[in-house]
């Protein structure tokens, strides 16, 4: 596998930073890939634009930021406007179904997936796990990270008292069937 870039965009409070960090950690420590995690966010604690990047390579990653993501995960309309132009021609687009509106899937998208992660999270009892549902969904649809590694990283990185909820969120995202 050559250089591969994943970018996750949304707004502050959705947990897009944690989602990227979990995937990068899983890749680096458990799948033994060369992986770098970077983040970008505004000064606001919640509501501002927020994004995380994961770059994977066979050898040590040189430039650590996504330039033209192979995989773009979008969790807000604003992030869609900002990041969609950067998606690689033929790349994979994954969206939060209810938070990103588009008339039709743009032509340059090679592979498209969508999931109502926030609604599913609410059904599980807390919308805060929408990001982990998304991690499960990314793991399943892209295959960039092994399921065992991703799940292990999720469980390591969330507080002990919400571990079960997050495990359920990951599994629900992983087994989600697109209608």
């Amino acid at each position, binding site marked *: 596998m050559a250089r591969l870039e994943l970018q996750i965009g949304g707004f502050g409070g959705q947990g897009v930073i944690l989602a990227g960090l979990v995937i*990068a950690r899983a890749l*680096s*420590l458990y799948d033994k890939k060369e*992986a*770098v995690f*970077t983040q970008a966010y505004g000064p606001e604690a919640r509501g501002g634009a927020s994004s995380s990047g994961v770059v994977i390579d066979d050898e040590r990653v*040189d430039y*650590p930021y996504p330039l033209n993501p192979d995989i773009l995960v979008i969790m807000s309309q604003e992030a869609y406007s900002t990041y969609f132009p950067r998606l690689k021609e033929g790349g994979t687009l994954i969206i939060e179904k209810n938070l990103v509106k588009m008339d039709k899937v743009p032509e340059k998208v090679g592979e498209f997936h969508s999931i109502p992660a926030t609604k599913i999270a609410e059904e599980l009892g807390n919308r805060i796990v929408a990001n982990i549902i998304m991690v499960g969904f990314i793991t399943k649809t892209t295959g960039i990270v092994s399921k065992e590694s991703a799940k292990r990283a999720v469980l390591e990185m969330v507080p002990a008292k919400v571990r079960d909820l997050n495990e359920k969120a990951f599994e629900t995202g992983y087994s989600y069937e697109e209608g």
Partner: protein
Amino acid sequence: MSKDILVGDHFLSGDVAAAEGAIAAGCRFFAGYPITPSSEVAERMARRLPEVGGIFIQMEDELASMAAILGASWGGRKAMTATSGPGFSLMMENYGLGIMTETPVVIVNVQRAGPSTGLPTLLGQGDVMQARWGTHGSYQAIALSPESPQECFDMTIKAFNLAERFRQPVILLMDESVGHLFERVTIPPKEEIEIVNRKILKDKNRKIYEPDEDLVPPMPPIGEGFGIHVTGLTHDERGYPSINAETQERMIGRINDKIRKYADEIVDYEEFMVDDAEVIVVAYGITARSARRAVIMARENGIKAGLFRLKVIWPFPSKRLEELSDREFVVAEVNNGQALVEVERAIKKRAVFVGKMGGEPHKPQEILKGIEEAVK
């Protein structure tokens, strides 16, 4: 498992890796004032130092932070502070006191864009010359520049070793990008980590600033009967003020020479595809990672490019650059030309400069353009 060295693979940010490097090096005192993008260093130290019997103090400002670590070092501890541009400016006076009193400490500066408050939490590399000349007077500076969390760990240990070896404040000149990006960090077992400790003065009849042959005086332990006087005034071998040209010449000459004469021991760089390169990019920190990609892109386009990465910025690797001066040069950095001055001085000609005022790292494409211009 012992808590001072967390042996194994970790996924850490550069800031956290620097804190772990400090603890592995034996740092047991940290005084600082939080400032982004360096706050994670302090945060980690606040959590970790109590676990290993160390002391963490959040000070009222950066002047006091710097003063506290100098005091801790004289008290026998390995001590560190961490800051960013505005705080680094405030530390300059006591940085000079550390040089004058030959006090081993480590200052981490996670650079953001300035001048002044500038861009909190956004990248800059504009403190290169400040690290060299930021405090007044004639002195030598030692500054290291990591490009990854692994190097943040390794170089913090090295910074402590150099500080102890030369009895001098050493600067770890990081940048926001390297401080905030996460990557695998492998922490080796204790026996594989080289640790240098300061020489301790034993002879009570010997003057406390009397140097050994390497020009570095052993450090007197406090509270064991040595008459110790520590002053920022020019002082003689006893440590007492001696305000005249002869003492100034002798003592300040020595604190320069103790580093100048051994600069080859300190100078460190990486050459990537330099052997057959017709054009060499000089870069450091995050910019070196952009430059590495640019060099690969240039090679794919048929241009023989190479990267000369400064791992130690001060002392500057002028000798090696002079040897390479038959090649074309590009200098890339997130400032308006600081390492550039030293590169051009070494190669005795102009280099193509690819600068940025800060806020984001160079895109590889931007450096590639500089490479193409240099071979035109």
